[in-house]
């Protein structure tokens, strides 16, 4: 996992290869996006899309494309970027290939706070205040941080071993799931159903409003993550070496975790509990471009986006017009990979 050659990523041949992979994946994402735009319950031919994009399509097609499908695909891309980057950060900071915020309970922590928040808002007879929706990512963030602190405190035993962290995380995950259920049982039937769909991971009610809610978080924290990627790479050399190279390890670790929680929580607040993206995307990225985070994070972000766009296309076409929560599709892909990793990881 740790290659000890020159730390500067911008000169070597591997860099060129990474760049090549990055653009190839970006191209793939673009193609998927176009296919996804055309697929769904109502059919749109490539010709229709072209006409609509150039402004000569019918009003119905414009509505379908620009108000329903486009925001949804953009949201899928953003959620994929957010969750994959968060996963890469978590795996890097904990030096643990299994540390996906979706598996170790960061997502459910966020989810619990969001569900609780929605429940409390629904208790008051008035209309929900205007800031209720904008506040969701913040509420999710507080929940994610709470879960992260809980996991770290409980897993701490003269340091945190990877397996211990995952086991405690899975426990925390179960605990928060139970707490969510407790809140849900107090909800009215319709709220309950909505919470279920939301928690299993769904972006079917995407709109430009949801996109705008998530976008600032991605625009702020993904560049931050990239900026910190070098430090993350240094940290992979081991704590002593990192300190020797002038890194304030504990401080940086906390900063990186906060960035990771922010990205995963903001994604969860709009898309619900989509697990495994934060696990699978960084792993695939590492396979393609190696373990250096300066290269690995961008590639893993694009892979995350591809994963969600692809899963969402499947989610809304297989049983159309009914929809499957996108989180289930991602899990179908991700769970076997997780088990495979559990089997192959030695320590």
């Amino acid at each position, binding site marked *: 996992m740790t290659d000890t050659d020159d730390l500067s990523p911008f000169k070597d041949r591997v860099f060129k290869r990474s760049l090549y992979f990055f653009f190839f994946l970006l191209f793939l994402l673009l193609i998927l996006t176009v296919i996804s735009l055309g697929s*769904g*319950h*109502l059919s749109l031919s490539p010709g229709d899309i072209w006409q609509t994009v150039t402004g000569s399509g019918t009003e*119905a097609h414009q*509505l*379908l494309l620009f*108000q*329903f499908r486009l925001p949804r695909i953009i949201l899928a891309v953003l959620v994929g970027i957010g969750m994959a980057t968060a996963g890469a950060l978590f795996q890097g900071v904990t030096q643990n290939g299994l540390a996906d915020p979706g598996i170790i309970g960061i997502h459910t922590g966020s989810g619990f706070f969001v569900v609780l928040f929605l429940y409390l808002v629904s208790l008051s007879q008035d*209309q*929900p205040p205007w800031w209720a*929706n904008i506040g969701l990512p913040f509420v999710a963030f507080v929940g994610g941080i709470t879960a992260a602190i809980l996991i770290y405190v409980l897993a701490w035993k003269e340091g945190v071993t990877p397996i211990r962290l995952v086991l405690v995380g899975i426990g925390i995950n179960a605990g928060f799931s139970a707490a969510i259920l407790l809140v849900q049982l107090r909800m009215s039937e*319709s709220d309950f*159903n*909505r919470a279920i*769909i939301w928690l299993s991971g769904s972006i*079917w*009610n995407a*709109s430009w*409003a*949801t996109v705008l809610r998530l976008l600032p978080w991605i625009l702020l924290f993904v560049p931050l993550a990239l900026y910190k990627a070098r430090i993350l790479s240094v940290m992979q050399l081991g704590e002593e070496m990192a300190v020797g190279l002038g890194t304030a390890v504990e401080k940086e670790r906390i900063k990186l975790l906060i960035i990771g929680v922010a990205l995963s929580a903001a994604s969860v607040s709009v898309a619900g509990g989509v697990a495994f993206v934060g696990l699978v995307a960084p792993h695939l990225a590492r396979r393609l471009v190696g373990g250096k985070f300066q290269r690995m994070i961008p590639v893993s972000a694009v892979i995350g986006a591809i994963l969600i766009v692809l899963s969402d296309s499947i989610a*809304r076409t297989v*049983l*159309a*017009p*009914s*929809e499957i929560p996108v989180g289930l599709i991602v899990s179908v892909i991700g769970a076997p990979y997780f088990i495979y990793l559990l089997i192959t990881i030695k320590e």
Partner: protein
Amino acid sequence: MKKLVVSTLSLTLFLAACNGENTVDESENDTTEDTVTEENKETTDSESRVLTDGAGQDVDIPENPEAIIASYLEDYLLALDVIPAAQWSISDGEGVQYYLQDDLGDVPTIPYDLPYEAVMEFEPDFIMIRDQPEQDMIDQYNLIAPTYVLNASPTDWRETMREVGTVLDLEDESETVIEDYDARAQETASLVEEQADGESAAAIWMIDTSLFVVHPERSSGAVLYGDAGFEIPAVVDQLSDDADWAAVSLEEVAEMEVDHLFLISDDEESSLTEDRLWQNIPAVQNEAVYTFDSQSAWLYYGPIANEQVLDFIDGSLQ
């Protein structure tokens, strides 16, 4: 009764006022805009009314909407002779409201959670929903067609009926539906008085070995006790919390000592009915257990469902 008369009167007055306004509008249009094309005239004619809905939004209600999506409100629409563009369904169109299929048989199905593209497919010009979804979703539906979220409580079918009537500009018709229903209920009430005066009844829903009893003021419970006039067993009164159908044990059912048992069950045989406790229920001993399948109207709300329940009661007593 007095209240009803007064409200009907004020409603009629209100309607009359509205009509007056409309005619004024039309004549104005005619004089000032002689050159308007047929199309333009149509749009000015269908100038919409504005009502505040359950989500606190002012909704422009189109006049004479032709393609209405009002999922799970089909009962009320049909009572007003309005055929919706699509009907509620679950499991990919497999599960529908069977008790309405005489009227809804030809109406295509739409998934219960109203995915945007499924809604778009029907090109509705008006959408009515009951469950209050997130504002984001209402905004999206509004892009497709004006969307009205009902104010009325889902457990009060009369209130719902009136609101649906008001929204669709069919107030008089909705009052007629309620009056007709009350008149029809009176027939059953006299039958009950004649055949089972002072006797108690309960509607029990049996799923495998679980039992549920209807809330005395909701769904078919409101019909059974409020309209038909059966006595409410003490146990039912105590159980009634916030569910339409509350879970009960066999012991509690036995404790009810009901004279008439309306059993909603899809199983021919159940181990429960072999139980001594069950055998000792007065209704069982007097052969006053009437079985219906779970697709029948007992589990639903609305004037049509209720009327079918009245028919069931009549049929059972005769």
